[in-house]
Every structure is written in structure tokens, then in C-alpha cells.
């Protein structure tokens, strides 16, 4: 019984949240890595692009709600999602046409691109705060729990409850569908292969008749979809606050780099690695050990590796460790 309790405890506090947060980071990191692979720069505006997409989703959700439209048990935001995606694509293409294209044609170096993307980050940042404000917004409606901790306890008779929020299941399913479609596209379709080819060797791709404009357009479309989906899932699961989205840039970049920058599958795994590290290292294991240890050996402290206040330090530490020990594996074939 104690053993089962301890397993449920970890599932409830580490595995379920880890899968959810990992999915959100994975989607974000794949977006960053695609931009890096194809457009060849680290896009610091990505967190705010996610915030922008989510903001549109929220506005449309509010509008729908005001008209009395809902999605039954599911959050209304899911109906609003396609609109959010379209707006985000429009914004990405707008900034590409007005800003990035200029530097691309000038063949500016990657550092210039980073600074330019920082500029766009500030602009998006301001736009979002002007339109929707800097405050925390909860836009999750619909059915909250698939399984409540109390129900689980009653059902199983265990001490520990397992709560599963519907947003967690929605996140997982959406991520699976999105990633399956994306990897099918990249690996199986001709256009997807052209995109990989362009990312692998631009000169050769051009000489193979691949139209760079088309690839760039396609990349922004895919990235905008990923950003909006990731942002919306994160917001539904936790809440929407522009500053949090900006902050999430760090774990997302860490996931991207851990996975090997420019490598979408790596970014996917990287997202989960960062999420699980963050959650597992900030969890207090006291109760867990209480279940497993004889009373005499019960821990007196919380057994928490790092306080949750420092969770961003974990991403940062992983980032630095990877950069120091595996820089070649990470920047394989890509020149910064």
C-alpha cells in the first residue's frame, strides 16, 4: 500500500505535470529550432509571439463567450485557436516582410539578427500589454477535472490522490497530434524534405531548385502555429500573463539547445528533459520517503533539491552545462 501510495504521489506531482509542461516546452522549442534551422537566427521574440497568439485566442474566447457560444466540456479557447493562429501568422509575416527580409537580403550576421529579434520582442511585448494588459488572466472554461484527487482516493482507497486536469489531457493530445503532423510533414512530404534540405545546406538547396521565399514563408506559418498552440495550451493549463511568457523563453531556449539547435526531434526531447528536471528538482520528496522508509529513518527535512523560486536556474544550469560539455554535438553543422 505504501509503495503504491508513493508511486501515485510521484505520478501526481511529477509525472503528470512533467508531461504537460514538457509538451508545452517541446512545442515551443520546436518552433525556436525551426527558425534557427531555416532562418538561421535565435529568435528572442518567440516568447512574446506565443503571448501574442494566446492574447488573440483569449480575445476571441471572450467574444465567443459574450455571444453565448461555448464548446461544451472543452474550453472555448479551442474554437478560438484557429483565429489566433491566423493572426499570429499575419504578425510573423508582417515582421518578416518589414524587418527580417531586409537583413536576410543584406546577409547580416546572426548577432545582428538576434538584436533585431530583441527589438521585435519589445514591440510585441508592448503591443500585448497595451491590448490586454500585464495582469494574470484565466481563460479556462469548460470542465476542469477529468479525475479529482478525492474521487481517486474514494475509488482506490489509497491515501494519495491522483488529480488529472482536463487541460493536461488536452495538452497531451494536442501535442501528439501537432507533432505527428509536423514530423510527417518534415520527413515524408516533398515540401517538408525541401525544408530540411534548405536547413541542412542553403547553397545546395538553392542549386537544387528550391525556392527560398517559399521555404521562409512556410517556416513562419509552421512556427506561428506552434507558438500559438504552445502558448494557448500553457495559458489554459496555468494562466496567461505576458511576463510569464517572456520568462518561458529561458526554458524553451534551454530545451532547444539541449536537443541540438536546428534539430526538431531533439527539441521535442529537450522540452521534456527540461520540464522533468525542473519539476523533479524542485519537488519536496519528504512525503515520498515517508512512505518508503521505516519510521526510524524518516527524513526530517523537506528533501527538496532546489526551491521553486529558483526553477529558472535549473534551465540555466542545464544550458551552461550542455554548452560547456557538448558544444559540438549541439551546434552540429551550424555556424553561429
Amino acid at each position, binding site marked *: 500500500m505504501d509503495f503504491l501510495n508513493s508511486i501515485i504521489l510521484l505520478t501526481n506531482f511529477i509525472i503528470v505535470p512533467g508531461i504537460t509542461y514538457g509538451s508545452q516546452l517541446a512545442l515551443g522549442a520546436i518552433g525556436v529550432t525551426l527558425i534557427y534551422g531555416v532562418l538561421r537566427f535565435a529568435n528572442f521574440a518567440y516568447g512574446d509571439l506565443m503571448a501574442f497568439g494566446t492574447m488573440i485566442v483569449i480575445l476571441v474566447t471572450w467574444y465567443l463567450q459574450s455571444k453565448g457560444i461555448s464548446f461544451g466540456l472543452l474550453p472555448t479557447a479551442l474554437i478560438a485557436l484557429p483565429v489566433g493562429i491566423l493572426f499570429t501568422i499575419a504578425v510573423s509575416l508582417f515582421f518578416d516582410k518589414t524587418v527580417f527580409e531586409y537583413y536576410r537580403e543584406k546577409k547580416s550576421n546572426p548577432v545582428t539578427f538576434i538584436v533585431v529579434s530583441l527589438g521585435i520582442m519589445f514591440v510585441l511585448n508592448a503591443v500585448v500589454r497595451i491590448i490586454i494588459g500585464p495582469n494574470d488572466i484565466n481563460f479556462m472554461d469548460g470542465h476542469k477535472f477529468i479525475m479529482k484527487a478525492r474521487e481517486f482516493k474514494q475509488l482506490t482507497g489509497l491515501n494519495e490522490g491522483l488529480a488529472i486536469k482536463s487541460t493536461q489531457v488536452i495538452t497531451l493530445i494536442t501535442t501528439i497530434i501537432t507533432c505527428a503532423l509536423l514530423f510527417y510533414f518534415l520527413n515524408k*512530404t*516533398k*515540401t517538408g*524534405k525541401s525544408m530540411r534540405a534548405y536547413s541542412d*545546406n542553403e547553397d545546395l*538547396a*538553392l542549386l537544387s531548385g*528550391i525556392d527560398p521565399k517559399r521555404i521562409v514563408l512556410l517556416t513562419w506559418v509552421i512556427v506561428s502555429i506552434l507558438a500559438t498552440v504552445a502558448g494557448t495550451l500553457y495559458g489554459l493549463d496555468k494562466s496567461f500573463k505576458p511576463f510569464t511568457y517572456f520568462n518561458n523563453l529561458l526554458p524553451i531556449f534551454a530545451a532547444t539547445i539541449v536537443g541540438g539547435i536546428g534539430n526538431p526531434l531533439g527539441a521535442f526531447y529537450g522540452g521534456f528533459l527540461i520540464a522533468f528536471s525542473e519539476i523533479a528538482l524542485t519537488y519536496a520528496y519528504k512525503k515520498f520517503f515517508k512512505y518508503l522508509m521505516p519510521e526510524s529513518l524518516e527524513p526530517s527535512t523537506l528533501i527538496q533539491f532546489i526551491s521553486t523560486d529558483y526553477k529558472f536556474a535549473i534551465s540555466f544550469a542545464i544550458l551552461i552545462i550542455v554548452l560547456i560539455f557538448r558544444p559540438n554535438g549541439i551546434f552540429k553543422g551550424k555556424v553561429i
Partner: protein
Amino acid sequence: MSNILVKVENIVKSFGGLVALNDCSLDIKTNSITGIIGPNGSGKTTLFNVITGNLKPDTGNIFYNGIEITNYESHELFHLGILRTFQIAHEFTNMTVIENLMVVPGDQKGEKLLYSLLYDKKIKKEDEEIRDKAMEVLQFLKIEHLKNERAGNLSGGQKKLLELARTMMVDAKIVFLDEVGAGVNKTLLKDISESILKLNQDKGYTFCMIEHDFNFISELCDPVIVLAEGSVLFKGTAQEVKQNEQVIESYLGKGIKK
């Protein structure tokens, strides 16, 4: 005049203070195998880069079949049938050999973005045709056993063959070969030279090739153009080049083997 396929007129290209091409003019005849030789740094590769759209010239014009193509992008030139290989072999490292070839036809004309996402009989059929074509090319170059090898794992010589294979995926009009023979062993070199001849005679490809091995050049090329310090020093048959004093002088002390 109509049998001139590519006309290069007064091209100047400099990198900072270094003038790599200095008022360079030359013609490439339709269906010829034109050789280009010259000491290291004489601007041969730069000439190719300028013609195939990798670099923009500072001044000068390039014509293809009478159309000016000076400012065309590489992928546009590709669709006109102008292809090239690189001196340092390029490949899509993380794709297999056959995948490398299958991306080559670039974007299908009229292929819609959304369309390509959908599972479609027509696309599937097209895909199979491209695969067949790729297999045919690999067989032609006798490297079909490498089809599932990751391109990044190929040897230098095999990468050169893959480059050549790429140019055969479409009906090219003219192919620029930048030292395909360098670093390739004798047997492979013979295969390559046979392939070039066969493509030239059977499929009407025009070739323009940079090569250091003069035997290789004299076997295949007529005419041979000698570049020195960014412009054309001499043009003639391989025999004439060999006997020309200016050419010999430009190579003196440069250690080029005859």
C-alpha cells in the same frame, strides 16, 4: 552566334581590395565541353559562383541563350537548366543518398502548399517517378549500392559522384563542374569522365569544367580556357594550350603538372 549558350561579358568581382575577376569575358558554346584551367586563386571558382547566382558581380553581364541572367537567383537558374557542382562537395548531410537526389527537382511547378500536405494519388505517383529517376541515375553512376547511406558518411570521391548525380536528376542544359576529379581515384575518375561524355553525347548536356589534371582536361575538353589573375589569358584546343608560351609562363614555378 546562336550556338553560344552562355556569354560572360566584362565581369568584375572583388572581395574587399582583392580583385578576383577582372574584366572577364568568355563564351561557352552549346553542346561543348569547355575546360577551364588556371593557377590557384585565378578566379575560376568565383567565375562559377557568379554565373550560377551564388555571388553577384560588381559589374558586367551574363547571358544565357541571349537572355540576360546576371541577377537571377540560383534556384531560378536551376529551372532554366543551369546546374553546378561545388569544388568542396556539398551534400544534405543528414539525408540518405537517394533522399539527396529526390529533393533535387526543387519545387514542382504549381505544387500548392496545402496540397503537398494531403495524401494524394497524384503526388504519390510523382514521388515514385522521382524515386525511379533517382535509381536510374545511381545505376548510371554505378553507386546504387549507396542509396540508403547517409550522405554525410560518404567518402570524398563518392560525394563528388553524388554531386554529379544531382545534376542528372533533371534535364540540365549546362552543368558547371568545379574540380569533380580532384581527390577521386583513377578508376572512379574514368567512370566520371565516361559519364560526362555520355551525358554530353546522348543527352546533349553542355559542360563547363574546372580541372587541374591536364590529362583529364585534354581527353574531354574543347576548347580549353586559361584564366589568370581574373581574366582570360588564352583560349584554344588542349594541344594549343599546351604549346602556348604565355600559358606556360603563367604556370611557371606554380608546380602544375603536365
